[in-house]
């Protein structure tokens, strides 16, 4: 029934090959964009079919392995090219191909006229292919292939404008930081494979087998180590503390890339991975604490930075980091469904936001270009009042902003609220829960603040663009607008698949579809948690209260933003003047990049230079050549024994005779 599932990754791969190899010859943008979009659309269709096929199965049969061929076999290690079809992967492929398709369409308009148009679409298709491998892979290794593959595409796409040094740097940074995470991922694979094999003779990296053998794993101990390794991988990919700094820099890439890779899909891979191995993570309570704390901290920390950025994409980037923090927090508190739920809704509204910002930048760029201004097209201080020029963009942007801010009725509310509630009510972390909730709630307020700050600075108020340029501002073409509308719509309705029981009950028992749907995936983990942790029972009133609190916090954030950036636009400047140090620190992202440079990058370079010039050349090679020099020098000395005088030769001979005879006589 899933026989043609291999088509899902194949289509983008074909698209990649066609555009990659022939794109330069094709030249026609419509054809190139068409091929690429069609490839993803094809995948989307097959994904839908797969999804329908899956839900037509009884719930307990919804985990299917589809083997394509045997990939690596060495001794007791085996990894197949095989796909795992289960509710989680199905959901992911729908998100990836669906949003991917929209962004492809968008890109046709956005990338119009760019140098290397074909290259862009080739990379984009390759990315979709890798991402599909990541989510479909039925074993850790294949997942890792996708995992690194998306990292690679991210590298390529961030560095798309390779002539800009900053773009190249950002790409490299992204790749290297991801590699740090990959290092953890690899160690995790090794540890798991070795431990289960060594102790239980289960030599496997396949998810279904791992799930079946999860009960063999102890609680804590080695599992903590293994899961921490995996989590290191997740922090790299999902831009969590301490490996988050690459994501803001990744905004050097074209905006569709930011939307697709750095908001909707790739960066959620870490969350996906934790979800995929939830049954292992729950067996490591310490890791769960770490995951939850890192998630909460990232959510809060990134949000603070977001409040002071002026680059529209950077704000969104920090927002993404923050939202990813939420998802990770959800995973850390055992709310796997909620995490995946937020992953999905975030994909909708953040893609919409990024694409909207792209539309703004595109328009700004064109306008500024017309007046030969070198003002930064991405700086919000140059924007303002854009809503009258780009009404559709504004509207979709606003919807997505409301969604992310957590206003009830929009998708973001449901998912975020679920996470906050679980952070408070989960059975895992005891006294830590309150802090986790509080951090999440504050971050939610900050999110609402900076997002509305963004909206106000961009679309409201007076037009600050260079005089004369405003007449060139215009709404984007339909290929750009249509995806925005679709995503905005999804940002509204996307939340209704996962209405919390509390609210559902009010409306006559609307079920939480998502939870039911994902149940088979997390059953193993949930069962373990149920057996090993005491679920505290909280009253409905408390849950309502917390929900209300978070909404109020969000509203406060919005109000402050409105007050500062609509009602009284001079206040922020005064505020910065009052607390210059704080502002500078926040504006400069708490100097984390500089810290990394100082603590890691520069010492590494210095060490490298020392090892090369100091150790390799002087000590090691010095020893090697030293031996040679000593030998040569010795030769230089010995040759002077040869004086050329006959008598000295005779003396030497006589000396030899005497020594030999003497030795003989006296030995």
């Amino acid at each position, binding site marked *: 029934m899933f026989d043609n599932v291999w088509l899902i990754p194949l289509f983008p791969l074909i698209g990649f090959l066609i555009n990659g190899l022939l794109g330069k010859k094709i030249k026609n943008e419509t054809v190139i964009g068409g091929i690429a979009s069609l490839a993803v659309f094809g995948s989307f269709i097959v994904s839908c079919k797969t999804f329908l096929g899956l839900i037509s199965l009884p719930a307990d049969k919804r985990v299917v392995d589809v083997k394509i061929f045997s990939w690596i076999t060495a001794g007791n290690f085996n990894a197949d090219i095989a796909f795992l079809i289960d509710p989680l992967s199905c959901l992911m492929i729908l998100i990836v191909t669906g949003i991917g398709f929209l962004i492809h369409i968008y890109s046709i308009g956005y990338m119009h006229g760019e140098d290397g148009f074909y290259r862009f679409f080739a990379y984009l298709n390759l990315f979709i292919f890798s991402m599909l491998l990541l989510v479909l892979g039925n074993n850790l290794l294949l997942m890792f292939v996708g995992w690194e593959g998306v990292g690679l595409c991210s590298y390529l796409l961030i560095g798309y404008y390779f002539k800009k040094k900053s773009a190249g740097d950002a790409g490299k940074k992204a790749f290297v930081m991801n590699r740090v995470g990959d290092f953890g991922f690899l160690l995790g694979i090794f540890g798991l494979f070795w431990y289960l094999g060594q102790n239980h003779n289960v030599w496997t990296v396949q998810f279904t087998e791992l799930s079946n053998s999860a009960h063999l794993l102890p609680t804590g101990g080695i599992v903590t180590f293994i899961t921490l390794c995996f989590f290191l991988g997740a922090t790299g990919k999902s831009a969590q503390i301490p490996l988050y700094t690459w994501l803001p820099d990744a905004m050097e890439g074209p905006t569709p890339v930011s939307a697709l890779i750095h908001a909707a899909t790739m960066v959620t891979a870490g969350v996906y991975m934790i979800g995929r191995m939830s049954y292992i993570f729950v067996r490591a309570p310490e890791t769960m604490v770490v995951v939850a704390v890192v998630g909460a901290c990232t959510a809060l920390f990134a949000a603070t930075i977001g409040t002071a950025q002026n680059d529209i994409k950077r704000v969104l980037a920090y927002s993404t980091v923050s939202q990813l923090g939420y998802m990770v927090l959800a995973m850390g508190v055992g709310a796997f469904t909620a995490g995946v739920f937020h992953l999905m809704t975030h994909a909708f509204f953040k893609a919409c936001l990024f694409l909207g910002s792209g539309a703004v930048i595109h328009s700004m760029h064109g306008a500024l270009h017309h007046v030969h201004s070198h003002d930064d097209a991405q700086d919000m201080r140059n924007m303002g009042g854009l809503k009258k020029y780009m009404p559709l963009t504004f509207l979709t942007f606003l919807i997505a902003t409301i969604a992310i801010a957590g206003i009830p009725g929009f998708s973001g509310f449901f998912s975020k609220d679920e996470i906050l509630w679980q952070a408070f009510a989960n059975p895992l972390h005891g006294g830590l829960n309150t802090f986790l909730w509080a951090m999440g709630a504050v971050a939610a307020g900050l999110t609402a603040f900076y997002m509305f700050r963004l909206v106000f600075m961009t679309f409201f108020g007076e037009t600050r663009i260079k005089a004369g340029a405003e007449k060139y501002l215009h709404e984007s073409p339909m290929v750009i607008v249509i995806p925005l509308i679709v995503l905005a719509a999804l940002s509204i309705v996307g939340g209704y698949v996962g209405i919390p029981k509390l609210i559902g009950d009010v409306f006559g028992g609307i079920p939480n579809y998502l939870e039911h749907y994902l149940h088979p995936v997390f059953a193993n983990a949930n069962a373990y948690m149920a057996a090993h942790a005491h679920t505290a029972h909280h009253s409905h009133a408390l849950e309502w209260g917390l929900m209300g609190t978070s909404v109020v916090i969000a509203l406060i954030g919005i109000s402050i933003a409105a007050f500062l950036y609509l009602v009284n636009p001079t206040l922020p400047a005064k505020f910065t003047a009052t607390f210059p140090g704080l502002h500078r620190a926040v504006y400069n992202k708490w100097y984390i990049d500089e810290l990394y440079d100082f603590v890691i990058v520069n010492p590494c370079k210095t060490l490298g230079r020392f090892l090369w010039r100091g150790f390799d050349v002087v000590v090691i090679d010095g020893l090697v050549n030293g031996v040679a020099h000593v030998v040569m020098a010795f030769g230089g000395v010995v040759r002077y024994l040869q004086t050329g005088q*006959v008598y000295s030769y005779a003396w030497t*001979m006589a*000396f030899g*005779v005497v020594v030999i*005879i003497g*030795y*003989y006589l006296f030995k």
Partner: protein
Amino acid sequence: MEINVAQLFATINVATIMPEIILSIMAMVLLLVNVFVPSKQKTYLVWLSLLGIIGAGFSAASGWGQNISSFSGSVVLDNFAIFFKLIFLVSAGLAVLISDQYMERENCNQGELYPLILFATTGMMLMASGTDLMTVFLGLELMSISLYVLAGFNRANLKSNEAGLKYFLLGAFSTGFLLYGMALIYGVTGTTRIAAIASSVAQMNSPLTNTMLGAGMLLIMTGFAFKIAAAPFHMWTPDVYEGAPTPMAAFMSAGPKAAGFAAFLRMFLVAFPMLITQWVDILWVIAVLTMTIGNLTALRQDNIKRMLAYSSIAHAGYALVGFVAANATGTTGILFYMLSYAFMNIGAFAIIVLVGKQGEPNGSVQDFAGLGTKRPVLAAVMSLFLFSLAGMPPTAGFIGKFYLFSGALEQGYVWLAIIGVLNSAASVYYYLRVMVFMYMKPSEEEFGWVTIGAPISLALVVAAAGSLIPGIIPSYILQLAQQAVKLI
């Protein structure tokens, strides 16, 4: 004391010394021919000498496996002697072939050269065959005296003069020690026959504590050590090789060294095997010193003849490694190595002959710069010789060293073998240096030499074949060498 003449004559078998006879007769014929044929061109003497050498070779080879002793047991024609004789003849043949062009260039193309080479060779053959201290001594002196003259053959050349003089003085000096040693041995054992010495030593009550015996033996050792250029009796070598006419340096490095080993081996392995504990550790030290001093000093030489002289000291050291082992493998190695060494070393000298300029103003390695471009074949052949000298497979030099070091290992002299291979590795540097000049440096000036004459071409071909083929298919020669050492 009554002498039964008939009985005495009955012990004479001319076949035993047939090769020597042929060579001496040819030498004398050459002397006469040289006087009576008033030709400036001496190439015909080359071919005549070669004829004699080949004749002697056949004569020697025909005695293979017969093991005939004659002249009351003072001369023997056994496989050991034959193998060595062939080595000497090869050296002599190659030396003769490369002499003509050189002597012509250096204006000292006197015809006496060839008879002298043949006489020297006769002396060597006698040394290899000698089973009596007297015959050994006679052979040695016949060889040495001819060589003194050959070293100083270029009378007008100061260096050649000096070479002859130094060689003569030091050679005679060492002869004194050798003879004194022989006298002491004679005194202890009452005989000069090597076999009789052995049985006499065997019958002694305590040969190990007999000071006179030991001292005599060691004095003999120093005498031979001089001939094979072992440290610390090697000092003459560089000066003599550098000063002597190049072909004669080539000849001296191959033939007399082999002859020294022939007599040395026979003497010590036949007459003094009982005393091996007395001499083997001394020889161990000498071997190490010889290898090391030779190689280290060669590293810093610019004059290529001098460099090869030091290298020949080092090679004596390698051969001594086999001697220290004193077993079948080691001695087989010595025989094989001496033969290969004759080919490769004379081959290398032949190239020097061709590259050198009249009067050899400096004779330095720099003269080889650019040879690889100008005369690729010569450079390639020279590389072959040098690689063989360095002991790189697949050359004869490698197989030789392999057996020498194997012999030492077989006897448990692991450190000796290790020192040997390390020396061998160091030696690579100076051999490579010549190749660096040939291939990797541009030539500074034009090469002065003319066409390559037929004799020297023949020598090069033979030497190249002799350096390469035994490296690839060494079995036959190795087996001959093995049969040769069985008898001593």
